[in-house]
């Protein structure tokens, strides 16, 4: 199978654009996850690849062949839907066999393929049941089996895990990844869940409002978010973002209750409007006065393996991830340190990443700090 290429793909409904020129190349055999908030156009994009939505302009190609006008069943794609979309009146066996029946495969061959797929997905004992007699996870596996049996070039997954409970979601995620390793088929997986996105993807595509914000490996997208949107979307809790200014000598200055505070030095020109981002796990929180920016802890979320302290710094809320502990922090005054090497800079006008290093500030915050818990 060749690469799947989307070139300047656009989609409008009644003149209202929902996709604004998407350019993506999906290498053969890759597991690509498209992640973004609801309404960003990721499902529309997937459906256009499948052939279930018309293309307004642009092309969808597999290798050199343009697929825009090709029937869904002839594109070599198989889709797993969010609500499973099983045929309610057919048994599991008949559901999985249906595409083979349409392809007029001989019965013996059909049966053997169905049984092989059922074995892989642990569905053998459920073959004579109807979808109504199955659990959510079993139905999802039947939907995957119906896709697998066609031996497609491309698997398309449209938020297939969103209707499952948390535990089942984790199990199915692992099954999907194992299946991908086994079949080595190109897979395009759409989700709004960033944990799914990070754990499943070889390549992650972050979308927002009909545009691609960033394409990269999960680590790349997490460590170097390309825009304010990606920075705020990826990561739980989200990255802390606040406006800053470049002062004299490239000083990076943010507003604090005590006034403007320099938190680093950059090579940017004075007056450049920037937004500073720092991940909650990179913030340092201390109860020792004068060791950082003063804040008050409003609320602490207990996650078991860690805690998240939501603090008020001036007029904004900051989240800081802390190691587990029993100390009561709510209502206490704390001091926050933003390590320069952990800061991300974004152009406040365009929202795009500014890739310049941030060095330690010459003054205002002592370099020594304490982590008191």
């Amino acid at each position, binding site marked *: 199978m060749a690469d799947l290429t989307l070139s300047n793909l656009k989609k409008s409904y009644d003149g209202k654009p929902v996709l604004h020129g998407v350019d993506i190349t999906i290498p053969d055999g890759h597991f690509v996850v498209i992640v973004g908030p609801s309404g960003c156009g990721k499902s529309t994009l997937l459906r256009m690849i499948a052939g*279930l939505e018309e293309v307004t302009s642009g092309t969808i190609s597999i290798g050199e062949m343009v697929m825009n006008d090709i029937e869904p069943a002839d594109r070599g794609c198989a*889709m797993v839907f969010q*609500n499973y979309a099983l045929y*309610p009146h057919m048994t599991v066996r008949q559901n999985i066999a249906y*595409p083979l029946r349409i*392809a007029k495969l001989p019965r013996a061959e059909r049966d053997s393929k169905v049984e092989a797929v059922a074995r892989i997905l642990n569905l053998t004992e459920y073959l004579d049941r109807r979808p109504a007699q199955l659990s959510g996870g079993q139905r999802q596996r039947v939907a995957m089996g*119906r896709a697998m049996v*066609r031996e497609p070039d491309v698997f398309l997954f449209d938020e297939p895990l969103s209707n499952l409970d948390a535990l089942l979601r984790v199990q199915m995620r692992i099954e999907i990844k194992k299946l991908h390793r086994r079949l080595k088929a190109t897979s395009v997986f759409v989700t709004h869940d960033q944990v799914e996105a990070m754990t499943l993807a070889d390549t992650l595509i972050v979308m927002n409002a009909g545009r691609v914000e960033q394409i990269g490996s999960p680590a790349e997208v997490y460590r170097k978010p390309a825009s304010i949107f990606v920075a705020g979307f990826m990561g739980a809790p989200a990255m802390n973002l606040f406006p800053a200014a470049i002062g004299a000598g490239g000083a990076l200055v943010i507003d604090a209750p005590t006034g403007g505070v320099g938190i680093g030095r950059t090579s940017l020109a004075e007056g450049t409007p920037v937004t500073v981002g720092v991940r909650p796990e990179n913030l340092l929180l201390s109860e020792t006065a004068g060791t950082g920016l003063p804040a008050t802890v409003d609320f602490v979320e207990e996650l078991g393996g860690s805690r998240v302290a939501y603090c008020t710094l001036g007029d904004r809320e900051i989240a800081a991830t802390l190691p587990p502990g029993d100390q009561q922090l709510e209502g206490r005054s704390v001091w926050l340190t933003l390590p320069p090497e952990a800061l991300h800079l974004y152009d406040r006008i365009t929202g795009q990443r500014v890739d310049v290093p941030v060095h330690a500030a010459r003054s205002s915050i002592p370099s020594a700090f304490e982590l008191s818990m």
Partner: protein
Amino acid sequence: MTTDVLRAPRPMARPLRRISDKSGLDTAAGHVLMVLLSILCLFPVYWMLASSLRPANAMFETSLWPTSMSLDNYRQALEAIPIGRMLVNTLVFSVVSTAFQLLTGLLAAFAFARWTFALDKLVYSAVALTWLVPFQVVMIPNYLLIAQMGLLDSIVALILPNLVSALAILLLAQAMRSFPREVIEAARMDGARNWRILWDVMVPNLRGTIASLAILIFISTWNEYFWPLLLSRTAENSVIQIGIQMFMTAEGNQWGPLMAASTLASLPVLVIYVLLQRQVVQSFMKSGIR
């Protein structure tokens, strides 16, 4: 003052009711009412059956149970008119009309539900409007058409205007529109074209609606009277409703054979009801008809 009001004991507005308290219909009065209404509905049917078993000289007895019973009325009815032939004609008329109305309804409803095309709303409204046109408005033009085709006094003439039904199209279109879109898309991804999507995927899942509609159409065509009255010239090509009417003459009504013929005419529909009573009730509920 506010706290005094809050602290003061609240007067009991009404006695507390237990969850197991029965609803109105479960009370004895409710049951009595339902029994009375049932008797009111069933009594004419019982009287028809009882009258069909009374001899001619006891036809106007008012006793609930016939004092003497005989099958003479049935014998007379069978001798007077070709009831068997008429029942077969009516069955052919009803079954063929039902089958064609379902077939054309399914195809038209699928088109409305599946595609958006130019003037589709106008066409849909036009179909709905035909439902509002009374039979009396179109009976003469239809009669003239049938006469021009040389089909008077034939079963084909009875069936022709009943091949398509706006009710079938509207009900099926409504059911198809609420069919999960993703299941249809899954079928498209699996390689099914529209014909297979309709027959392999949609129709098996609309069995309830189709069965309800079939019952409605069957009962409606079985009871059809005026159109067969216009077209039929001979008893052999008539339907049973016309046959029953033959016992009502200017010289007087032959109540015994009339009741016997009516009982025989009611049997097929009663059998359908006994076998499919759940779907019959649902079909009336869905169509909004009593």
